[in-house]
């Protein structure tokens, strides 16, 4: 029973949120902010696997997000609506959208993971600054490729995902998007937590501390890196797919280095190598962005300034390599962490 307490608590919170959404107790603005919180949790925790646990400096996370966003949107538009791109060739009817929506998201995650190979394979030979530039290049390559495919809108972007959401709502009218965001965010956190606790996760941490020593100690560094990069980019892809459906409009300009920086800020705010830190900072950062909205342009002066001050006085971030259960040991009574 106690082993499942955290899961039960999470499910209870999910149920509460879904009921709140269903009854429309909160206005649409707060609902969208809550959806962004869920998406940002996925993004920051997946980037934390690379930047925090593996100690690499990946600054192109938005690229994977873009792949996921475009794949999911294209698939959904083709399957459930008569879009201008596919016509009726893929069309199977809007009534199936309820079942197939998560499937398309997972496919989007796979595609993003495949693009993640572009980073993973060079990472066998390069580290640190050179790998940072490779991730950056991948971000630009993805953005630039999308801009050059005129069939999916090119630089003008691509819209109509709202129709897919409406199609789901026409079948059963419950807040589908929030449900899937909660489901995927929860699953990815559990997956990441178990991954980090597994032998592979220990391998990831060993690579951060010393790659050569890890190799000598029989860590299959290539395999570990491959899996870590693909897992991270896959989750980012799913988050991108959800993001596209919340916004209802995507263009390549959304997924620039600016977006990647935003995700990085969340990771470093929360603390490297701390999943609960990432979750916490994703919530904090998203809410902070909304509160700072009246400042308009100065928002983007203030946020970097905050981060610089954070780096000066608390460089390890909010949590810094510790989980919530390390900060509050009392929590362990209720949520025992399993030894893998």
């Amino acid at each position, binding site marked *: 029973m106690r082993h499942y307490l955290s899961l039960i608590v999470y499910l209870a919170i999910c149920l509460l949120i879904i009921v709140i959404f269903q009854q429309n107790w909160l206005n649409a603005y707060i609902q969208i902010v809550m959806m962004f919180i869920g998406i940002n949790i996925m993004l920051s925790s997946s980037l934390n696997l690379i930047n925090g646990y593996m100690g690499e400096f990946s600054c192109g996370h938005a690229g994977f997000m873009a792949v996921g966003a475009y794949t999911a949107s294209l698939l959904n538009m083709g399957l459930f609506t008569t879009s201008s791109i596919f016509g009726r060739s893929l069309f199977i009817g809007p009534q199936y959208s309820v079942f197939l929506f998560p499937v398309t998201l997972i496919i989007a995650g796979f595609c993003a993971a495949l693009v993640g190979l572009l980073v993973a394979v060079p990472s066998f030979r390069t580290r640190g600054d050179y790998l940072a530039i490779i991730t950056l290049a991948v971000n630009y390559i993805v953005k630039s490729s999308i801009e050059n495919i005129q069939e999916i809108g090119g630089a003008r972007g691509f819209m109509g995902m709202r129709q897919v959401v409406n199609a789901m709502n026409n079948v059963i009218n419950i807040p589908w998007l929030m449900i899937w965001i909660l489901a995927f965010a929860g699953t990815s956190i559990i997956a990441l937590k178990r991954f980090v606790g597994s032998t592979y996760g220990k391998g990831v941490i060993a690579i951060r501390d010393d790659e050569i020593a890890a190799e000598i100690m029989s860590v299959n560094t290539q395999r570990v890196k491959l899996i870590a990069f693909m897992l991270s980019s896959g989750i980012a892809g799913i988050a991108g797919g959800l993001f596209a459906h919340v916004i209802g409009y995507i263009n390549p300009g959304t997924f620039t280095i600016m977006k990647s*920086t935003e995700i990085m800020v969340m990771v470093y705010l929360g603390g490297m190598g701390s999943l609960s830190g990432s979750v916490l900072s994703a919530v904090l950062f998203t809410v902070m962005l909304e509160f700072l909205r009246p400042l308009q342009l100065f928002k983007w002066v203030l946020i970097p300034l905050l*981060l*610089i001050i954070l780096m000066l006085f608390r*460089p390890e971030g909010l949590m810094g390599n510790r989980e919530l259960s390390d900060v509050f040991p009392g929590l362990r009574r209720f949520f025992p962490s399993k030894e893998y």
Partner: protein
Amino acid sequence: MDIQSFFQNVINAFQWGSFYALIALGYTLVYGVLLLINFAHGDIFMVGAYIGFFVATFLLGTYAIHLPFHMPHLVIFVATLVITMILTAGVGVTLERVAYRPLRRKGAGRLYIVITALMAGLILENGNLALLGASRKAFPELIHDTVYKVAGVTFTNNWILVVLATLAVFLFLETIVRKTKIGMAMRAISFDRMAVPLMGIPIDTVIVFTFILGSSMAALAGVLFASAYPVLEPYMGAMIGWKAFIAAVVGGIGEIRGAFVGGFLLGFIEIFVAAVFPSTFRDLISFGILLVFLSFKPTGIFGVARAQKI
């Protein structure tokens, strides 16, 4: 592509590559000494261009106050160049003092300094946008364009200026780093950060000197860029800064020769890609080449892999 347009593209590539080379220098100098990627450097280039704009318009008497005397445009250009380089060096040194040095003193990891640099760049960009507004500034024409035509290939006096300035900077920096005492100190710090202070070398002075060199070269690039492409906007430094960083990495970061070769190489690649393919493919192909290049030779052209000890 016939032979004439080929040579025309070579000419263009030299100018384009010069800008990359000048900015890549700043990355490479700071990296060579501190092993720090100064991601704010592209934005220092932007700040340089803006400072150049204000100095030039002030000296022309078209900004703020009307000056009681008139100077010839060439004098204004040289004065703008010098004043801008000094002021921008001040910006770079301030950045080092305010953001990087406290972190270094605390012994924070390199990664934290890199993040600080990234954030400082964002502050410069968005602070500029918030203070000066989104309207673009037109850089005044200080040197009247004279077009020369040799065997069907055209180039301007601006082109000559840019390429000559780049070559001069290359020779100047090579001399400083290879032949002078402070250059020796710079190389020593890059070789062993721990032992250098024990030898009585003032580390902070050397680092400040490095930032002065890098920032003033970025300012030079900024003013030259602005007189070649006279439209200034707050995000102009972001993309060109990243590209210059790529140039520095391809050349082998930390090597001055590498920055120049990488800059010109990237310039050539971009110009020729734009000449053969649609110009929207430019970023795609230049980044793709970078990706392939780094997968096969991760240390860049001149870079030497450092031996790792356990």
